[in-house]
C-alpha cells in the first residue's frame, strides 16, 4: 500500500534580504514509499536532502509538485492542504524526528516523549509508561527522565527526540540523521526501532550518514543530486 507519494517537487529559496538571491535546491523530485519500506536519501552535503525532508513534513512550502501522505483512508497533499489538516496529519499519520529537540524548557523528558501519544488520545498514565519504557530502552536513566532535557548531552537529547518520534507509532516516519551523535550500542538500538516500525507496516524515509545504519534498515536509496543551477 502506497503511504507516501511525492511527484515533481521543486523548491527554490528566495532571500529577500540578500537582494532577492534565488537558491534553487530541488527540481522535479519523485519519491514513492510503500507500507513496510524504508528509503534512504543519499547525496552529497548541500544536495537538498534535509530540504526534501522538511518539504515532506510541510515545514518548507514546495513551489511545485504534490506530496501525498496516507491519512486514515485518504491521501492528503501536504503541499496544498489547509494548515489545520496538515496538523491533524502530523498528529495521527506523519512523524518526524528532526536533528534538534525543540520543546518548552521546563517540561521533564518523560512528558516530552509522552506528548505525541497524549495528543493522539492515549491516557496520560499509559503514555508516560510507554515513554518510560522507550527511554529505558534508549538508555536514558530514570533520574534523567524526570528532568527537562535542556541540560542533557547532545546524544541524550537526540535519544529523547527519537523516543518522542517513535512513541506514537505514526504510519509514515521521517528521520533526519537519527544516529548522528550516538555511540554504537545506542545506534544498534535505533536500528532495532526502525526495523520494528517497518515490520508493523510503517513507511520510513531517512537521512543516514552512517553507512552501517543505512545498510541495516534501508531497502532502497533515493539519490538527491545538487541542483544544476545552484551557485
Amino acid at each position, binding site marked *: 500500500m502506497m503511504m507516501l507519494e511525492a511527484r515533481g517537487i521543486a523548491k527554490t529559496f528566495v532571500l529577500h534580504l540578500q537582494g532577492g538571491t534565488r537558491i534553487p535546491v530541488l527540481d522535479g523530485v519523485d519519491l514513492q514509499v510503500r507500507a513496510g519500506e524504508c528509503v534512504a536519501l543519499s547525496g552529497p552535503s548541500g544536495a537538498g536532502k534535509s530540504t526534501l525532508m522538511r518539504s515532506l513534513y*510541510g515545514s518548507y512550502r514546495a513551489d511545485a509538485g504534490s506530496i501525498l501522505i496516507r491519512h486514515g483512508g485518504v491521501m492528503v497533499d501536504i503541499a496544498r492542504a489547509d494548515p489545520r489538516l496538515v496538523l491533524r496529519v502530523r498528529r495521527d499519520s506523519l512523524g518526524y524526528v528532526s536533528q534538534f529537540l525543540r520543546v518548552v524548557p521546563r517540561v521533564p523528558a518523560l512528558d516530552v516523549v509522552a506528548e505525541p501519544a497524549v495528543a493522539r488520545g492515549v491516557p496520560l498514565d499509559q503514555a508516560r509508561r510507554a515513554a518510560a519504557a522507550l527511554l529505558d530502552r534508549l538508555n536514558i536513566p530514570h533520574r534523567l527522565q524526570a528532568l527537562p532535557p535542556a541540560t542533557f548531552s547532545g546524544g541524550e537529547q537526540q535519544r529523547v527526540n527519537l523516543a518522542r518520534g517513535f512513541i506514537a507509532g505514526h504510519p509514515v516516519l521521517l528521520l533526519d540523521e537519527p544516529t548522528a551523535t550516538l555511540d554504537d550500542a545506542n545506534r544498534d538500538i535505533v536500528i532495532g526501532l526502525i526495523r520494528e516500525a517497518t515490520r508493523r507496516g510503517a513507511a520510513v524515509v531517512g537521512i543516514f550518514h552512517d553507512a552501517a545504519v543505512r545498510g541495516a534498515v534501508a531497502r532502497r536509496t533515493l539519490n538527491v543530486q545538487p541542483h544544476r543551477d545552484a551557485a
Partner: protein
Amino acid sequence: MSDALLSARGLGLTFGPITALDEVHADLWPGEVLAVVGESGSGKTTLLNVLSGRMAPDAGTVWYRDPARHLHDLHAMPAPQLRALHRSDWGFVHQNPRDSLRMRVSAGGNVGERLMAQGIRHYGDIRAAAQDWLAQVEIDPARIDDLPHTFSGGMLQRLQIARTLVTHPRLVFMDEPTGGLDVSVQARLLDLIRTLVTRLGIAVVLVTHDIAVARLLAGRLLVMQGGRVIESGLTDQVLDDPQHPYTQLLVSSVLSA
C-alpha cells in the same frame, strides 16, 4: 469558516493618519492556538481588541458562534450581552495581570468572582473551585485568603489565568502573557498555558512579539506589519520558510541563545 468560533472579515481601522488594521481576515477554530506576531505598532494588539469586541472597527465584521451554534455580529451585540460573553464563554489574559485582577480582593475571591458572576451562589463550591484552580496554576492553595499584592509577578500572571479559566471558556484572548516576566518564570508559564490549553481544548488568540513563544504554543500563525496580515499559515512553515521580506527580516533578527 463553517465551524469557526470566530471569523473576521475585511477589518479596517484607522487612528487619524495611522492605519491600525487594513483588510484583515482571520478565523479561529475550536481548540486551536492562533498566534499573531509583529513588531510594536504592527496592529496586533488592535486586532486582539477588535476580535474580542473591546474596540469597534471602521470596516468589516467579526462573527462569533455561540455554544448553540448561532452566529452573532460581535460589534452589533448589545453591551450587556458582550459583557456576559466575556464573563463566561470567553476570557482575556492581559500582559499586566493588574489590568484584570482586583488587587484589594483575596486570591480566592479573584478566582471565585467569575463564578459568582455566572450566578453560582454556594460559598463552599466557589471556595473549592478557587482552591482547585490555584493548585492547577501551581499556587499554594493555602494562599487563598492572601491579597494579590503579596504575590510575585509570575504568581500574579498565574492567578490571572486561574481567574480566566475557572468558568471553562471556549475561547481565550492573550496579550503578551509572558511579557515582562523573568525568563525562568516565562518557561514555567509557557508550560502551564500549553498544558491547560491542550487538556481543556481551549481556543486561543495569542498576541506576542516573541517568535519562540509562538513556535512553542501555536499551530497557526499570522504575521502583521502596518495593520496588514502579510503572511499566515502553519507556524513552523512561516518561521522556517518565510516568504515575505518582512517575515524573513523578523525571523533572521531573532537572537538564538
